């Protein structure tokens, strides 16, 4: 072996980080745009206020600091851990700045005026969040550390919200006005998302297993589920209103069971139907991915059909099935918003109320927790899949 210098592919050796440059551009645009909108009341259009002017005497200093952090991110020599810290710190700083702006701009004793996050806020948040996630993905942290980071992110953002620092912000004012309703709809939203997922697993796992064991049925079953999946969600809700309405009116006892044309029942059914295809097809794919030799050996050693399924096939198919759970959960958390249209409750209630009243803050009160929920569920399940993955990898070389 000669001592040839190996050309390094690591981006760390580059003087310029391209993603860093992109994030800096987004962030600088955010700094140049108004951080918040000041509105005389919750419905009228407001006027934008730059960060520098929004939080009092420290404003321009804070702006310079954020700009500095963004520019530091351009350097390719910045260590990834520092980049992660800058990103995470930036997110928190932007949140705190929003709260400070609400406190500073709202006149004493004025309950009508609203300070709403504006383009600048969102772009800055995006820039720093991207910086943090980009660094995170390049750091290749251990699973345990990534779980910890997820928990830490929830705790920190939850902490900022609970501290009351953001209470002056428009969205939080909307929250304050309907606190009880918010938590009821939050519960309803979770029931919609997890309930439909649970139902889909309860029905989809046996179907997926069935068509794995009986290949002749595969085409028909997957065909039907595929068609279900292509029906637009609003249309599906629309179809269900008359169908379940008729059942509730004409079938004795149906209404007592909760069957109704509108409300949570048709919403649950629709989400359940959308969940079936991913669950069934991933169950099938997962089971088919089990090494043929392992399956053959399981039968050959004298396991019963049930023992093979429980002891070998399902454990080995689990990561793929969990991928379906992830897809379904994230999809349903988002889709459940539409349930608000047919009285199914959930965060969608606020979204559609807000749209009716042209109160964007109310729309955000429904949309932001939905996004947060979907993000957390997606990341948590990704981590869960990865936690279970190593057991599956099999060495193929001799």
């Amino acid at each position: 072996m000669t001592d040839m210098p190996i050309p390094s592919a690591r981006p760390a050796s580059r003087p310029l980080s391209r993603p860093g440059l992109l994030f800096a551009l987004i962030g600088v645009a955010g700094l140049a745009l108004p951080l918040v909108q000041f509105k005389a009341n919750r419905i009228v259009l407001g006027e934008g206020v730059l960060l520098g002017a929004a939080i009092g005497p420290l404003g321009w200093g804070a702006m310079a600091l954020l700009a500095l952090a963004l520019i530091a991110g351009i350097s390719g020599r910045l260590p990834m851990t520092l980049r992660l810290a800058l990103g995470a710190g930036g997110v928190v700083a932007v949140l705190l700045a929003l709260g400070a702006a609400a406190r500073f701009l709202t006149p004493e004793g004025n309950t009508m005026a609203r300070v709403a996050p504006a383009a600048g806020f969102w772009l800055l948040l995006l820039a720093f969040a991207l910086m943090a996630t980009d660094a995170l993905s390049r750091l290749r942290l251990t699973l345990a550390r990534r779980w910890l980071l997820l928990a830490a992110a929830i705790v920190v953002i939850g902490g900022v919200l609970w501290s009351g620092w953001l209470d002056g912000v428009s969205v939080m004012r909307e929250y304050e006005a309907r606190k009880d309703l918010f938590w009821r709809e939050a519960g309803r939203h979770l029931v919609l998302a997890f309930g439909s997922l649970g139902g889909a697993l309860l029905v989809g796992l046996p179907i997926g297993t069935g068509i794995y064991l009986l290949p002749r049925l595969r085409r028909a079953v997957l065909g039907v589920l595929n068609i279900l999946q292509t029906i637009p969600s609003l249309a599906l809700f629309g179809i269900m209103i008359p169908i379940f309405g008729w059942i509730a009116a004409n079938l004795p006892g149906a209404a007592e069971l909760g069957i109704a044309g509108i409300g949570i029942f048709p919403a649950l059914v629709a989400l359940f139907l959308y969940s079936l295809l991913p669950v069934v097809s991933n169950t099938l794919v997962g089971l088919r991915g089990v090494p043929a030799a392992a399956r053959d050996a399981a039968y050959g050693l004298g396991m019963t059909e049930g023992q093979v399924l429980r002891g070998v096939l399902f454990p080995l198919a689990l990561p793929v099935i969990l991928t379906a759970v992830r897809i379904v959960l994230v999809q349903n958390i988002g889709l459940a918003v539409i349930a608000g249209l047919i009285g199914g409750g959930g965060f969608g209630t606020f979204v559609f109320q807000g749209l009716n009243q042209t109160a964007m803050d109310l729309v955000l009160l429904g949309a932001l927790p939905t996004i947060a929920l979907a993000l957390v569920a997606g990341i948590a399940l990704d981590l869960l899949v990865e936690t279970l993955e190593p057991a599956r990898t099999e060495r193929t070389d001799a």
Partner: protein
Amino acid sequence: MIEIQNLTKRYDGNTVVDDVSLTVETGQIAALVGTSGSGKTTLLRMINRLVEPSAGRVLIDGQDTAAIAPYLLRRRIGYAIQGHGLFPHRTVAQNIATVPRLLNWPEAEIRARVDELLAMFQLDPTQFRDRMPHELSGGQQQRVGVARALAARPELLLMDEPFGALDPVIRAKAQEDLRALQRRLGTTLVIVTHDMEEAVALGDRIAVMDKGRLLQYAPPAEILTRPATPFVQELIGTGERPFRLLSLSRVADLVQPGEAPGAPISAEASLRDALADCLWTGRDRLPVDGGGVVTLAALRERAAGADIGSAARASAGSPAR
């Protein structure tokens, strides 16, 4: 003893195994040889009913296997396959313990058996017990696969190309170990292989199959010297035949009184090794350890197929090389 009687398997009018009958005596090794598609694997899988026969029956020690629930039958029969088929999500110990667990052995007994088997296969229990299959080399995986098949002390072991995924060096060693182990445990063994060399090295009797039919079922020496059909002859390979014949016997079988100069050869070595030694060193007689000589003339005679009784193979206590 396994008696296979008129066993037939048809798939949609395609006959994969066609009226095969053969008997494997207790403690013997039967090697099923044939090209791919010859029906040898299907025949093997009908013994433990992974494939249900279309016609015919299998008796194990006189008992019709069709009368036993398949999963109960399989727990009595060891089963090892190509690519080992280890459960990737279970540790080595859990893999080996599969059948004892199914049979509800007490936990302490299972643990002792696992360690005993690991030691038997030259895998240090403390080191290997808790490893996952993907942390083992190919040869180790294969050994764990065989250990798993033997865990509940089956009297019958079925193997389907168990060494197919191993490289030649490890493969020869694995064959040798299997042969020694089988002799020690007295297990009846049916092994499927496409490799005539492997069949000659392992089998007490070789069953040659082609297109679902059994062409010849005989001891290796007989297969080599009196192939029943041109196909069997082709499978043996005329170029290899004398060497395979020599590999069946040990020097001890051909030793004559006398003396010769030069380095001696072990009485346990195969005649093939003796011939190689003669050719390489240019001698026409070799001294044998413990007295006597083996001559090139005698080797030539033996290589031409003379003087081979069907018992010759069975009397050779160690695996031929």
